[in-house]
């Protein structure tokens, strides 16, 4: 697998350097693996995201204006260690507490739980909201086993907005938890990405098959099926979301995200979006806003996911707040 890199073992640090360059004075690398905005106001309730590299633009590319205040970035597909998370916690802490917001993966939970304890021991007020939006990864009564996938984008966006309007960590946790609980996603996989260090594929899948509900690293979904049309696939994915425990009824307002996992084109995302819109219209569900593109990726993996976030009167103004980051910018 040809890639435009220098050394397969240093991609994570090099891309983080490039990311800081991208922010062009708005954000800095304050310690190894830690990128934070330069102008976090005193007493701001801080939002910290974190995760392994290789899924760009998340998570470190979500640092931005009205977005995350900072991110702790690990090696490719590996959570950063607790001390890096602790460094990040210290860097974003402006005296009013820090909320951790990240995807529910074993390595991340382990390392960040340790960091949380260490930060608390230092007197920093830390709370965690775990993201688990993937309906295909476990039944509704086992949400703690669910993976965090592309639904993290609307959740972090809402949390970023909230973090700029609340005055307590508790309030940020409440709003973010609501955003999380109002978000459902399902993904499909067509072909694996490759691991930068080895060049090997992240998983195996037949040329004519599609993995319904598969995770972004190739984790098990709800079944492998023969390739099907975009419309049939979209209907199937929407059924999985509607079959979950969050209702989407006539009159509800949602944000829709159609996310490419890497090499799936915007052309395909738009064709899927067309069907999503039709299905939501038939239900009477109103689309408040739409995002599409490469937001949560796994290298050049082929596949996409659909996420729905239900807005209420409290979340809608948060959604409408402009924001800016490498991953997502809203005017």
């Amino acid at each position, binding site marked *: 697998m040809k890639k435009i890199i220098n050394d397969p073992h240093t991609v994570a640090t090099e891309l983080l350097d490039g990311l800081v360059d991208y922010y062009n004075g708005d954000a800095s690398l304050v310690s190894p693996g830690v990128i934070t905005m330069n102008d976090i106001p005193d007493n701001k309730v801080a939002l910290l995201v974190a995760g392994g590299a290789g899924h760009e633009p998340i998570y470190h590319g979500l640092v931005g204006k009205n977005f995350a205040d900072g991110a702790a970035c690990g090696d490719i597909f590996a959570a950063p*260690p607790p*001390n890096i998370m602790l460094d990040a916690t210290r860097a974003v802490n402006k005296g009013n507490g820090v909320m951790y917001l990240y995807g529910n993966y*074993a390595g991340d939970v*382990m*390392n960040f739980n340790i960091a949380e304890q260490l930060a608390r021991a230092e007197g920093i007020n830390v709370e965690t909201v775990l993201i688990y939006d993937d309906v295909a990864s476990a039944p509704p009564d086992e949400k703690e086993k669910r993976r965090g996938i592309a639904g993290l984008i609307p959740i972090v966006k809402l949390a970023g907005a909230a973090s700029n309007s609340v005055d307590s960590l508790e309030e940020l946790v409440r709003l973010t938890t609501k955003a999380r609980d109002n978000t459902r996603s399902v993904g499909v996989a067509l072909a694996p990405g490759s691991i930068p260090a080895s060049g090997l594929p992240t998983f195996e899948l037949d040329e004519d098959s599609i993995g319904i509900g598969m995770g972004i690293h190739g*984790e098990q979904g709800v079944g492998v099926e023969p390739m099907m049309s975009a419309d049939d696939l979209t209907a199937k994915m929407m059924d999985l979301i509607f079959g979950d425990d969050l209702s989407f009824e006539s009159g509800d307002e949602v944000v829709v995200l159609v996310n490419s996992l890497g090499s799936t084109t915007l052309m395909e995302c738009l064709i899927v979006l067309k069907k999503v819109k039709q299905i939501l219209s038939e239900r009477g569900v109103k689309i408040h806003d739409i995002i599409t593109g490469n937001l949560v990726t796994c290298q050049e993996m082929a596949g996409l996911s659909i996420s729905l976030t239900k807005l209420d009167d409290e979340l809608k103004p948060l959604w409408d707040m402009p924001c800016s980051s490498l991953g997502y910018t809203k005017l």
Partner: protein
Amino acid sequence: MLSADAVKNMLIAVADTVIANEDILGEADRQLGDGDHGIGMTKGFTAAKAQLEALEPTSVSQVFTTTGMALMSTMGGASGAVFGMMFQSGGMAIASAEGLDAATLSTFLEASAQGVMNIGKAKPGDKTMVDALVPAQAAAANVKDGTIAEALAAAAEGARVGMEKSKDMIAQHGRARTLGEKCIGHPDAGAVSVSIIFKRMSEFAAA
């Protein structure tokens, strides 16, 4: 009984051995995982070795927790937390120990296995390093009254047998989980690491 200095030298020897086995560990992970276990352990034990060499240890506990913190703070990922905790939890449980004897080792290993299972939620049989660590602990518990060399030999043999048995298991965690039956025949990479670690400790104590 091994002094704090001896334990320090023992863990430096362990670090050298783990680093020397980078390719073997990478290959083991390549069969079932993403092939980076050798890289990760080398990173962790390189840091651990550097910190140990700079350390003038005041207790065996400190030697183990220094190792644990070094692994945990440099490796990242699930394995960084798990291997870090293996030394960290064990080390904290023997804070008052004057040196490392068979009884202390047993206390260490019990806390170590418990710490790993607490943080990682893996049970024996899930095809993780727990399947080498728990048998090591059980074997060492049987020779609490022996010498430290005997206890470490038992732990090493327990770890080896556990690692071998992991070949027959179906993974419940991490990437290998999606392989199902296909992972039968290959040992868990982390279990290979645990086996290598105790083998080297045993050799050190016997020398």
